């Protein structure tokens, strides 16, 4: 394999990072800059298709992320996909390409682009955990998040299906825990790290979503967490926006800020709240940090 240096990645923000998850996009770029990684946004990228495409037509479900991978191959770079759904689709497409040569041919016919499997997708946690990146984080650490008890919530898509993601233990993942340790925070182990947050029912069955988010928040709070860290825009939106409804169902009040892991890393690297978009949250993300003298 050719070594890609200096560390450059094709950057695939997907739709969320340009809309509801702006702060994820912002903080991602802040962290990359701080650790000396160049993110090159894929020119002319398209929707990853999650999750409607692969439910409608298996080939379409492959072709949308397949084209994104082909674009990255043309750049000669691996892709970082911060959104867990985007990451899942890209990883699945690469897996499917290996199993269905006919898909690859059809894709080539439809888009005129070749797919050889030379580029792969990285999710943010894997990306942060790489030897070089995590070493750079350790080195650039300015403000360790001492005393901040954070529940690392992985959600369903980052680790599943294990045959496709080949990343961490699908039931008891630890990658985010490690990252939190690296930046000086205290990861809180809890039983609902990979439970479903209900995002896909976010419009049709809000009652169920509140129930599911409520369980996750309750488990995190009961385990002693003061905040939740995520690496998925859907998880963030759900956990952040439904705390009141979830609290009503659980008969309690939640007050857990829900941070993107990149926001916490950025914070530890000395970035300002403004740069990290910490003002864009629904559950106040600043008070806790101020209380801990971290912002």
């Amino acid at each position, binding site marked *: 394999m050719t070594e890609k240096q200096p560390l450059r990645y094709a950057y695939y923000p997907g739709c969320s990072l340009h809309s509801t998850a702006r702060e994820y996009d912002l903080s991602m770029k802040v962290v990359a800059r701080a650790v000396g990684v160049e993110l090159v946004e894929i020119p002319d990228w398209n929707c990853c298709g999650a999750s409607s495409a692969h439910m409608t037509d298996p080939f379409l479900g492959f072709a949308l992320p397949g084209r994104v991978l082909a674009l990255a191959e043309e750049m000669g770079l691996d892709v970082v996909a911060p959104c867990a759904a985007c990451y899942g689709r890209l990883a699945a497409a690469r897996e499917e390409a290996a199993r269905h040569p006919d898909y690859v041919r059809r894709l080539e016919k439809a888009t005129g682009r070749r797919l050889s499997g030379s580029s792969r997708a990285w999710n943010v946690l894997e990306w942060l955990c790489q030897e070089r990146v995590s070493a750079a984080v350790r080195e650039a650490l300015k403000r360790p998040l001492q005393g901040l008890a954070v529940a690392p919530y992985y959600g369903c898509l980052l680790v599943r299906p294990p045959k496709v993601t080949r990343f961490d*233990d*699908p*039931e*008891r993942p630890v990658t985010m825990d490690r990252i939190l340790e690296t930046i000086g925070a205290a990861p809180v182990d809890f*039983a*609902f790290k990979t*439970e479903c947050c209900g995002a896909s029912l976010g419009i049709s069955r809000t009652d169920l979503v509140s129930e599911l988010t409520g369980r996750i928040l309750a*488990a995190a709070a*009961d385990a002693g967490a003061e905040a939740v860290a995520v690496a998925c825009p859907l998880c963030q939106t759900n956990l952040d926006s439904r705390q009141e409804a979830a609290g009503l169902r659980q008969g309690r009040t939640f007050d857990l800020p829900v941070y993107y892991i990149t926001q916490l890393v950025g914070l530890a690297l000395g970035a300002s709240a403004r740069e990290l978009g910490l003002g864009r949250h629904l559950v106040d993300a600043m008070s806790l940090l101020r209380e801990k003298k971290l912002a």
Partner: protein
Amino acid sequence: MKRVGVFLCWCGSNIAGTVDVGRVAEKVRLLPGVVYVEENKYTCSEPGQASIMKAIKEHDLERVVVASCSPRLHEPTFRRTLEAAGMNPYHLEMANIREHCSWVHTDREEATAKAFDIVRMAVAKALRNEALQPGRISIEKKALVLGGGIAGIQAALDIADAGHQVILVEREPTIGGRMAQLDKTFPTLDCSSCILTPKMVDCAKHPNITLYTYSELEKVEGYIGNFNVTIRKKARGVDEALCTGCGLCQTKCPVKVDSEFDVGVGKRKAIYTPFPQAVPNKPVIDKENCRYHKTGKCRICERVCEAKAIRFDQEDTIIEEKVGAIVVATGFDLFDLETYGEYGYGLYPDVISSLQFERLINASGPTEGKIRRPSDQEVPRSVAFVLCVGSRDDQKGVSYCSRACCMYSVKHATQYREKVKDGRAFVFYMDIRTPGKAYEEFYRRSSVDYGVEYIRGRPSKIYQKGKKLVVRAEDTLLGRPVEVEVDMVVLAPAMVPKHDAAKMAQTLGVSYDGYGFLNEAHPKLRPVETNTAGIYLAGACQGPKDIPDTVAQAGAAAAKVAALFSQDELTTEPMVARVDEALCSGCLWCKPVCPYKAIEAKTITERVAGRTVTREVASVNVGLCQGCGACTVACRDGAMNLAGFTNDQVLAEVDDLLADLRPACGV
């Protein structure tokens, strides 16, 4: 050219009805080497056979071809005929013109043409066959039994009772195996040690049984009747001859570690016997944890031992034995429960395995039979038993059913309800499988009489909530998710092959399946034999089994050994591989492909241009070789050949069949 006689059978109308035997005979007469052709109505009948014998004498036949039915049916018959006529029986070739021709074709022309081809291939092969002699090998009437669990104990006792010497080798410091860890046995709720320990003692006392505990098999060489086995007797640190088994050393030893026998729910000392009824009742020193071995100071056991039996510097001893048969009874391991991250085994102290539960309810276990949960020693008011953890799970575990878990979990739930009268027992199951005598009744009783609550569904998650554990599952009968809060969870792990089963199989030269269970020679008809003659299987090393099945199989293996030992000599199949030493380059690439480890290097000396030269060649142990011929294909220069199916013979069959091209119906 050899003089060939061809005997064409009509088999009544079975062959003659479709094949024009007369026309085949006419053409066969013209084949090179054929000096005599005869048709018979039934060649296998007595007159038919007599006619062959007569023709052999009258026509000085050197090779015989019988064209009739499948050789799988009558090859032995006609070989005997040849022998009776004073001819080497392996000068026979059969042409299968019934099963492969007259019975499956309808067109007389086509069938006749094909029959002729079949006969002519047989003639080509016969012209190149050779006289073969079966060998004879002696039998050492002593058996080796590997593994001292209930399977090994039963096999050893049965063989010994039949009057033969037995060597019983056990890896652990005591015999007894898994059964010794159990409290009671289903469905009768007999106390496990009450029925096992007498057998253990019988083993130790039997004049025909030599017991090597804390010992492992190192090497096996040889073949049926003549195995040379090497056993490593690990250093116990204790002189067994002097030790009285008083147990004082164990009482005084200052080091406490987790007990393997108690599966981590109890402790033992660094000098220990696994349990009080151990056989032999002589302790071993666990060097890894012994303070003296670690720091050079302590020696308390040595000081307190009145028999002066402690030997810190004792070394392993190597024992070599010659045996005629081997019974493998090495047992099983349990599935690694931490594979199921969602169940929290290893994370939550009150999620335990069935075997740990077995130790908790055992009156001689660490809690003296009181069920207390590990986290706070409280008596659990509710317990969930989860079946099929690893079993029947293609994704994370193994595909097969482990056979015993349903029944022992039913037993556990019943026992729990007996001991904790107001407790609730939940069993999460996929199916309850009760195929054994009185098993279903036992299961019914657990529900009707003991109020065990059965929930059909495999849990998706177990998590802690305060002091409780929550088991989440789908109740597939109600079609609805359920969450049950309990104080303790017991997981029933799949039975899996011993971790080193593959290595053991390779040492023994027996085959194993994709999981690592040892393979029987035939799943129906040879369930206790292996493909390696003289090696037999007993118990769970072959696949998951409960105690009754294990004991039955052990008895069967012992009977096979006794039957083998009832003869003084064995005859061996002569159709085996052999080496042309002049050709053999000694590369030995034939060696790895031999399923029977029958090929070894041998040094030969020869004179070349006035000089004496030694070199290595392959050599075949005819006692081990079963005649598969895999080696012949690995051999590039053709030095390795297979008697009865030589390269020359196969090529002749191909060449003569295709010597001239003609429409198949062109006879």
